[in-house]
């Protein structure tokens, strides 16, 4: 097989054709395997540690909202855990995305490979670790009062959208961070605010009507409501929220790809 590679000022360096990306699929697999292996190397409990954080957070809120401020909501634990499990993925990806280009400077400056694979493999590392949390969640799901019904079949579709959304956010943050190192700290603070601005531990219905619409403009509120609807209310998410969620995902992915493609070839020189 002979490929012709052209390199010029206008060539699309970061977004390679899909066939090129596909050819590099084992690189993604190796990078993900390496990262997971190295991250938990030497720890006796290994990757189980990735479950500890969401577990501790969940237990903390459960204790508070069972004993300190008892919630009147039926099956409150299921409601809250649903939100927290999905928030965890967003939280982990956004807080780690900033530094991925800088961390991989050694690779990016020494060899050419489709640059898009850096944010992609970073998100896949988090997704892989997170799937363990999801598995634990699904085991506890019936115990917390959840019902297995056909509504759950819609979940993979929304999960895919959520994954693409998170990937897009990751690309945007990674690209901007090279020039604006403040972003990392800004993200840390914003995550705190966003957590409380998202109906994760309280129901959207408890929010005054006039603020509800404002709150629902946030994509994070949207996907939280979507997942609560599937797992807690046992109802297919409404069409309105599905469309809003899709629009956000599309916008973030398009902006992310565009920004990454436009900036990365030049950023590599400055890493």
């Amino acid at each position, binding site marked *: 097989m*002979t*490929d*012709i*590679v*052209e*390199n*010029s*000022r206008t*060539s699309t*360096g970061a977004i390679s054709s899909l066939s090129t990306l596909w*050819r*590099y*699929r*084992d*690189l993604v*697999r*190796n*990078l993900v395997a*390496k990262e997971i*292996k*190295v991250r938990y*190397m030497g720890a006796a409990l290994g990757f189980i540690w990735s479950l500890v954080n969401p577990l501790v957070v969940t237990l903390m809120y459960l204790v508070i909202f069972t004993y300190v401020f008892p919630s009147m909501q039926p099956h409150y634990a299921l409601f809250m855990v649903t939100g927290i499990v999905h928030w965890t993925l967003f939280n982990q990806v956004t807080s780690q995305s900033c530094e991925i280009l800088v961390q991989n400077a*050694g*690779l*990016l*400056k*020494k*060899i*050419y*490979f489709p640059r898009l694979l850096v944010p992609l493999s970073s998100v896949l590392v988090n997704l892989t670790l997170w799937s363990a949390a999801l598995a634990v969640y699904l085991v506890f799901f019936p115990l917390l009062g959840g019902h297995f019904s056909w509504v759950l079949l819609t979940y993979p579709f929304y999960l895919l959208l959520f994954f693409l959304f998170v990937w897009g956010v990751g690309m945007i943050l990674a690209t901007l961070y090279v*020039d*604006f*190192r*403040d972003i990392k700290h800004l993200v840390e603070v914003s995550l705190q605010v966003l957590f409380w601005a998202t109906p994760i531990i309280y129901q959207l219905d408890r929010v005054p009507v006039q603020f509800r619409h404002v709150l629902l403009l946030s994509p994070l509120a949207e996907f939280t409501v979507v997942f609560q609807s599937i797992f807690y209310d046992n109802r297919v998410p409404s069409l309105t929220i599905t469309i809003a969620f899709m629009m956000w995902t599309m916008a973030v992915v398009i902006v992310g790809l565009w920004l990454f493609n436009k900036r990365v*070839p*030049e950023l*590599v*020189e*400055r890493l």
Partner: protein
Amino acid sequence: MKDDVIVVDQVSKSFKLHHNRVESLKGRFVGIFKHRWRQKTESFHALENVSFRVRRGDSLALMGSNGSGKSTLLQIIAGILRPSNGWVQVQGRVAPLIELGVGFHPELTGEENIYLNASLYGFRNREIRARFSKIVEFSELSHFIDTPVKNYSSGMYMRLGFSIAVHLDPEVLLADEILAVGDAAFQDKCHAKVADMQQEGMTLILVSHNFDQVSKYCTKFVRLDKGQVVETGTLGKQNQGWAAK
């Protein structure tokens, strides 16, 4: 022409040199008022209007003193940097020997690093599995291949990196002064391997300022000075005197 494997057409590359680089928003804001905090940038022309072609199976030496732009040019050909102007076209599988053992992770074993490094060159894991024993055999590291690379000596590290690169059947090899690593015996083995690959039709671009090394492998040369091509020609027995210049 059909036979041209590498076409470099009017390539220019300028870098922005940042003096007093400011990365924070605060710094940028203060810079509006205070001169001392301001970021000063200056354009540096590493390459200007460089053009040449390399035909299949040829071997070209990029000569020039330090800072003449030859390594930058190699990085552009490898696709790592993008030219500011002009274009480069490369046909076939390229193995850049710009640094050995790119992507090696110290905590991973030699074996794991072989797969990781080779996949950075676009190889599938099963393609590597087929070459794995050859790579290990050539590097003479079979006894250490299952130990973490952090325990390797620098010679062992280089041997493994070199061995991977030359076993990927590159159609174009881009080398930045590295064509042989290790002790004298291993270096001879590297030389023989590269010569073999050239026999089989591999195209070579070698960046070097060492005339002995260049004359061993290359038949043509391009000499750069301050980013411009100042001399091109063929290297034969009859005109080896040019090195004295």
